[in-house]
Every structure is written in structure tokens, then in C-alpha cells.
């Protein structure tokens, strides 16, 4: 039996909407999530992605027991979250991206102390956990700083420690790297990898950042309009979505469109040109070819974003055979 | 001028989107009005001439008070609160460099808000009060005109006071204290707690001279016909005088604040 099991999960909401012309608002049923079925084993790191409003947070709310499903079955760590929410709370950790569960005006360690007490964690265990996380996330100097004085990245690290002090088996992260600078993002990803490796914590994260997924997740579940459209590896997703990366080249002088093997020039604007190539191909030969044949002043590579990949997934004609069917 | 009308209209519309909150507020005003009416009826039943009012005056005063609470924002709120928020966040710099005066801008917004509150939370409880109790209404059309002119002046006086409290945010980290003290003074000296006319001698004289008397007591006395002829003009001059003094004070403080912001670079 898997740690998280979801089968034929459905959640509908009743929305009151003003239909064109009508004076009164009318009730309409909206399916936020439908026919969701997946299983996650202990120790997996799964990226749960999709555009805004796809049903990601609705799913996470059902997995944590906040929302009750309309129909279908969920089992997390052997229990039904909506029935045993408080009991389950001791076994999971949740970090909601842009809101903090720390005390704004108090030093970090005060928040940690309170969590220790309300989770009734074993004191010795709490001490070792705290010491270890603080060390790994480099928070030692900040424990006495009021939370309001922390940077976004520091606060996110604080929130993650807060979610982990009671040794949860599962950690749900909602947009953990949103708004963070490159260095903070990298450090956070490294920590999460170590957490999964050393403690076997199961990770499920929703994100807009494909690099989070690339760095952390062996498996991606894509949801759009409430339906699961993909479940598999990230490479498979790129392949299936036919997604492309872009090289942005700044030449020393203006030039006609660049011609280089493996890439297509999409746009020229003065000395700047945009070249696209399949996301699963290596950028190295293209960059090398560019450097030898052209006077390159600067160069950068843009990753496809989630929205783009998912758009691609949809824009393909339905007759075309798709890699691995979802669901 | 058209700009200020637009600002006022926008504020009016902004408040008018909260229909549910408005209805809830009207209900609350009515509940408090009914409670106070019975208490006042008891008092004026035992002393039919307290403060120079009769029972009908006292009951009318209660509903005028309920009508003015939100209109003159006795508890605080309105556009000066927005300004305080912008001072704390630093967005006020944008306001300072706009080619329009801050004072006129925020006053217009507050008058727009007051117009909305007068038409909803002012009018509705008065109608309810009129159905439940025997109220007194001005008979002379001229009195109605005078009152129509007095309300925006009262709002301006209240605006000036709230603005001064908000402007302290330029100097204090936290302007909650000044605003709270202002709310306390307003609640008592406006005559919302008890009509100023029944206060004991010296306190009554003091209260009648303070700016908060313009919120309710002076307009109510015009409404009830306690001020007639020259006294009406006197009342209006008293209100207008406070409005001018307070706006001038705001302008001066704002000028100081502006210099401070320029020196410190925001």
C-alpha cells in the first residue's frame, strides 16, 4: 500500500455567477478536480504542477484534510485525511508559499518553541532536529531575530524548519521558491534533496518553477482544468509536450538570421536573436557552434515555463499518439 | 475642480460596492438607536425639560446621532486612514510629487465617502426611527437648505481632525495611539455618548466650543429649531471657522512633513 493513495477524486464547487443579460446571479457547478487517481510511495519526491486555477491547491487541501472531497477516496499514511485531520496533522508538514506560520514580531526560536509544545514532540528529539535543521539551513545567527526582520528567503527557511520539527513523514510544499533569489533557491533545493535522502521524507511540491522540478523531482504530475493530464518523468513531459528551450544571443553587430544546426532562429531584433531548440536536446553543441561561427557578445538560455509546456501538451492534435497515457 | 469631483465620485462608488456591509451597518445603527430612545424617553419622562430638550427632541437627537456616526466618521476611518497607510508604506512620496494638492485630493475622497454614508447609513436609520418613534422634522425649507450646507462642513471639520492624527504617522512609527485618543475625544465631545446640552455647566460650555460640537450638536440644534435666525448664522460660522482652522493646520503640518520627506529622501 502506498503512502498517499488517491482514487477517482472529485471536488465540485458551487459558484454564483452573473450570466450575461441575467439580472440575478445563477448557481453553477464548477469541477475543481475530477477523476484524479494516483499513488505516491514513501520516499518519493513528486512535483505537482499546472497553471493557475488548475486545481493544485484544491488537491493539496484535500490531501491535508482541510477540504472534504465531493467523491472518491483518499488515504494518507493509512487514514482518511478529512476524517482524521488533527491526528494526521502530527504526521505531515505543510508549507504554504506566501504565508508564514511564524510569529511576525518574535524571534524565530519562540515560534519553534511553541510548535514543539503544541505538537508535543519529545524534547530530546526536538533539540536534535532543531540543531540539525538550523545547521543545514544556516539559520544559527538568525534564531534571535524577529521574523519581520528576515528576508523572504530566510523566512521561507524558517517556515520549512517549522514544518519539519515534528518529524513529518510527508512534507507538502506550495511554491516554496517563489520570490527567492537564485542563491536561496539553490540552497533550499539542496536541503530538500538531503531531507529526502537522509530521512526518507516524502515530498510533494506544487510549483511554477520548472527548475524546482528538475532539481528535485523524479516524477511529475500535471493537472489542468481539474484533470490529470500527465504522470511520469520530467524528460517524458518535455518529450510529450514538444517543449523547446530558447537561446538568446547578443551579437557584436547586427546580422542576418543565424543558421546553426539543431536550432531555429525565431526572432531578430537588431543585434539580438532568439533561437529555439528541443528542450531535451543539449544546449552545448549549439552554443559551441555559435561561438565558433559568430561574434557573440552575450548569450543566455531560457527554460520553457510550465504554462508553455502545458500549452504545447494541448495544442498537439489529439490523434497523435501520446507517450504515456495519464490516469 | 472637475478632477476633485471625479475623485469624490470614485470614493462614492468604492464604498457603494459593499452592499451587504451597508445593510448590516444600517441594522446595527437601528438597534443602538432603539435602545437609546427608550433610555432617553425614560429620562425625559422624569425630567421633561432636561437640557432644554423635550422628549420628542431627545428621541430625534438619537436618530440624528445614528445618522451622523458614519457620515462624519466619528470612529475614524475614511480617506485619512488611506493616507496613514500610504505614509507607513512609503507610497506617500507618489502623492507628494503629484501636481495636485494632497489635502484637496483626500478631502474630495472623504466627501464622496460621506455622501454615500449619508444617503445610506444616514437616511435609512432615520426613516426607521421615524416609523418607530415620534420624531420632529424642520418645517421651513430654508432650514433644510442650511442643513444640507452644514453636513459637508461637519465632514470637513472631522476630516481635518482625522487628517492631523494620520499625519503623525510621518513622525511616529505607530499612529494607532493618536487615532485612538482622537476617537475617544470625538465619541464624547461630539455628543454621541450623551447630548452635550445635558452636560453639567462648565463641561457643557467647553464641549460646545470644541470642534467636535460641529459633528452633531450644532446641526441637531438647527434641525430641532433650537437655533433660529442669527443663531443659525452663528452656528454655521462656528462650523466654518473650525473647518478653516483645521484645514490650515493640516496644510502647515503637511508642509513640514514634505520638507522632512525631501530631506530624508523618503
Amino acid at each position, binding site marked *: 500500500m502506498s503512502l498517499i493513495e488517491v482514487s477517482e477524486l472529485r471536488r465540485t464547487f458551487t459558484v454564483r455567477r452573473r450570466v450575461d443579460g441575467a439580472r440575478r446571479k445563477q448557481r453553477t457547478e464548477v469541477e475543481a478536480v475530477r477523476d484524479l487517481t494516483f499513488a505516491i510511495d514513501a520516499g518519493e519526491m513528486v512535483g505537482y504542477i499546472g497553471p493557475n486555477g488548475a486545481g493544485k491547491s484544491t488537491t493539496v487541501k484535500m490531501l491535508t484534510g482541510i477540504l472534504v472531497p465531493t467523491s472518491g477516496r483518499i488515504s494518507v499514511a493509512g487514514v482518511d485525511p478529512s476524517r482524521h485531520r*488533527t491526528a494526521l496533522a502530527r504526521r505531515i508538514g505543510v508549507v504554504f508559499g506566501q504565508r508564514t506560520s511564524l510569529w511576525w514580531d518574535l524571534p524565530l526560536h519562540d515560534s519553534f518553541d511553541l510548535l514543539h509544545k*503544541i505538537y508535543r514532540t519529545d524534547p530530546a528529539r526536538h533539540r536534535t532536529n532543531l540543531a540539525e535543521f538550523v545547521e543545514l539551513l544556516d539559520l544559527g545567527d538568525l534564531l534571535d531575530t524577529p521574523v519581520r526582520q528576515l528576508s523572504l528567503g530566510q523566512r521561507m527557511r524558517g517556515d520549512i524548519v517549522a514544518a519539519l520539527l515534528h518529524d513529518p513523514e510527508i512534507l507538502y510544499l506550495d511554491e516554496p521558491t517563489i520570490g527567492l533569489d537564485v542563491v536561496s533557491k539553490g540552497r533550499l533545493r539542496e536541503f530538500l534533496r538531503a531531507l529526502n535522502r537522509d530521512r526518507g521524507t516524502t515530498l510533494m511540491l506544487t510549483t511554477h518553477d520548472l527548475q524546482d522540478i528538475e532539481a528535485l523531482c523524479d516524477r511529475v504530475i500535471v493537472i489542468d482544468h481539474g484533470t490529470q493530464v500527465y504522470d511520469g518523468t520530467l524528460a517524458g513531459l518535455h518529450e510529450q509536450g514538444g517543449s523547446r528551450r530558447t537561446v538568446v544571443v547578443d551579437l557584436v553587430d547586427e546580422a542576418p538570421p543565424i543558421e546553426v544546426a539543431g536550432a531555429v532562429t525565431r526572432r531578430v531584433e537588431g543585434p539580438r536573436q532568439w533561437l529555439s531548440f528541443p528542450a531535451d536536446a543539449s544546449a552545448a553543441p549549439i552554443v559551441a557552434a555559435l561561438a565558433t561561427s559568430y561574434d557573440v557578445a552575450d548569450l543566455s538560455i531560457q527554460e520553457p515555463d510550465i504554462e508553455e509546456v502545458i500549452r504545447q501538451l494541448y495544442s498537439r492534435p489529439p490523434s497523435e499518439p501520446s507517450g504515456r497515457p495519464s490516469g | 475642480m472637475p478632477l476633485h469631483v471625479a475623485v469624490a465620485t470614485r470614493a462614492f462608488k468604492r464604498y457603494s460596492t459593499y452592499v451587504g456591509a451597508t445593510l448590516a451597518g444600517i441594522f446595527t445603527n437601528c438597534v443602538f438607536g432603539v435602545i437609546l430612545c427608550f433610555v432617553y424617553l425614560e429620562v425625559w419622562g422624569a425630567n421633561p425639560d432636561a437640557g432644554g430638550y423635550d422628549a420628542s427632541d431627545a428621541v430625534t437627537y438619537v436618530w440624528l446621532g445614528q445618522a451622523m456616526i458614519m457620515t462624519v466618521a466619528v470612529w475614524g476611518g475614511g480617506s485619512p486612514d488611506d493616507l496613514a497607510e500610504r505614509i507607513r508604506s512609503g507610497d506617500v512620496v507618489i502623492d507628494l510629487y503629484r501636481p495636485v494638492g494632497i489635502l484637496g485630493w483626500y478631502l474630495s475622497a472623504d466627501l464622496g465617502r460621506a455622501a454615500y454614508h449619508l444617503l445610506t447609513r444616514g437616511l435609512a436609520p432615520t426613516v426607521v426611527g421615524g416609523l418607530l418613534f415620534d420624531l420632529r422634522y424642520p418645517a421651513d425649507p430654508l432650514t433644510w437648505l442650511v442643513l444640507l450646507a452644514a453636513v459637508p462642513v461637519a465632514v470637513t471639520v472631522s476630516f481635518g481632525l482625522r487628517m492631523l492624527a494620520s499625519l503623525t504617522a510621518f513622525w511616529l512609527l505607530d499612529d494607532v495611539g493618536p487615532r485612538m485618543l482622537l476617537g475617544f475625544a470625538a465619541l464624547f465631545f461630539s455628543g454621541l*455618548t*450623551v447630548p452635550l446640552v445635558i452636560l453639567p455647566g462648565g463641561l457643557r460650555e467647553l464641549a460646545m466650543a470644541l470642534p467636535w460640537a460641529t459633528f452633531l450638536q450644532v446641526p441637531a440644534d438647527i434641525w430641532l429649531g433650537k437655533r433660529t435666525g442669527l443663531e443659525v448664522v452663528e452656528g454655521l460660522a462656528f462650523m466654518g471657522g473650525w473647518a478653516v482652522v483645521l484645514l490650515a493646520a493640516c496644510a502647515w503640518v503637511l508642509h513640514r512633513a514634505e520638507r522632512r520627506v525631501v530631506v530624508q529622501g523618503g
Partner: protein
Amino acid sequence: MADAVVDYCRIASLWVRASMAYPASFWMMAVGSFLMTGLDFVAIWVLLRNVDDLGGFSLTEIGFLYGATGLGIAFADLCVGRVERLGQMIRTGRLDTMMTKPVPLLVQVCADEFAPRRFARVLQSSLVFVWAATYVDWTLPRALVAVEMVVSGSVIFFSLFVGLACVQFWTADSTEVANAFTYGGNQVTQFPMSVFPQEIVKALTFVLPIAFVNWYPALFILGRDDPFGLPEWLQLASPVAAALFLGAAALAWRVGVRHYRSTGS
């Protein structure tokens, strides 16, 4: 249950420390709220300078009524804290965060932003209550009823705060309606019921039994006859009214949370 109380105290005490991070603000708010809530009594004092009594009750007797209802709402306000802002907790997602913690939701909601400055109201009401109590002819049964009165009054206001806040699970626009019942309930019980028409008093006894906050037990303690001639056992029935209020509030909370968990909005 004991765990819930302990958790409540722990969360609340952290908020006390947080609010002490701004001592100036704390003291200004505390003094401000002390003065502000005291204004109601100043009003009563001013009114009674113009008349000998109000509804047949003297200033000290009204002070007793005022102090009792004041203590009730003050304790409730202190404990329930920010339940009035439930709608905001829903909008900001704070409620969701609370639901992922192993502490009963109501405990977390009530303890949220626990503000020690609310002690100011407790203090203000206590002062009036103690002053008025010195004019009471105390006996043991009267003292017991006084304790029962303050406890019942607190429970009734507590239930009103929580029960009415539950409306915010459906609509955020309604907070002012809640004020009409909580602060309005406080205002109406600051005066002797004999001021109001019989129909209103009966409604406040049998429909929305707010009169049990202080009026009935105070009649017993002050040794007064019921001006409306209602049965004497009502004077000892406050705990029953409090239990009814509490039950209704608990029901409203359960239904509200269930609604929230099935709509998430």
C-alpha cells in the same frame, strides 16, 4: 479538553510577548480602551444627574448592572479575541494554515492575536462593579449568585461572539450585524430592563435571552421585585440560558466549519 486549554494558554502567551514588542503602542491602546469603554458609564452618570432614578433604579444599582454586563463582555472579548476577524483569516488563508496544526481549530482561532490590552476593559468594568457592590447588602446566596452571574454572562457573550462570527463562513459582509448583538447586547443590559417596553424585555428573556447576563441575577442580589412580575425562578436561571447559548454557538461553529470544508471559500 485540558490539552486544549493548555494549548490556548501557550498560544496566547506568545501573543502577549509579541504585543510587548511595541510597549508604547500597547500602553496607548490599553489606556485608550480603558477610557473608551468607560464612556458608557460616564453617559449613565450624566443622565442620572438630570433625573433621580432610571426606571426606578439608582445610580449604584445601575452601576451594578453595568459592571456585571461589562465583566461578561470583557472576559469574553479577552478570551475569544479575534474571532470577529474570521472572515479575514479565511481570505488570507490563515485558517487553512491553522487547519494543518494538531490543535482544535476553535482554540487556535480564539487565541489568535490574543491582546493583553483587553484586560483594560476587565479592569474598567471591575472598578465600577466593585464600587457598586459596596452598596449591596451581601449574603452568602447573593454572593454565590454573583459569581454565577459573571460566569454565565461571560459564557453568553462568548457564545454570541463565536456564534455570530460563524456567519463569516458564508459572507464576510456581516460583521456589523454581529456588533448589533454583541455590543448592542452589552449596551441594552447596561440599563435596567424597566426602561424598556414589556415586549422587548420578554423577547430578551424568552427569544434571545440576553437579559440573563445580569438583569435576573441582579434582581436577586439587589433584593428587588421583578417590575414585570415575571416568575422568580428566572433570577436563578442564568446558567441555563448560558448553556443554551453555548450549545447554539457550538452548533453554529460545527455547521460553519463543515460548510467551509466543503466549499473552501
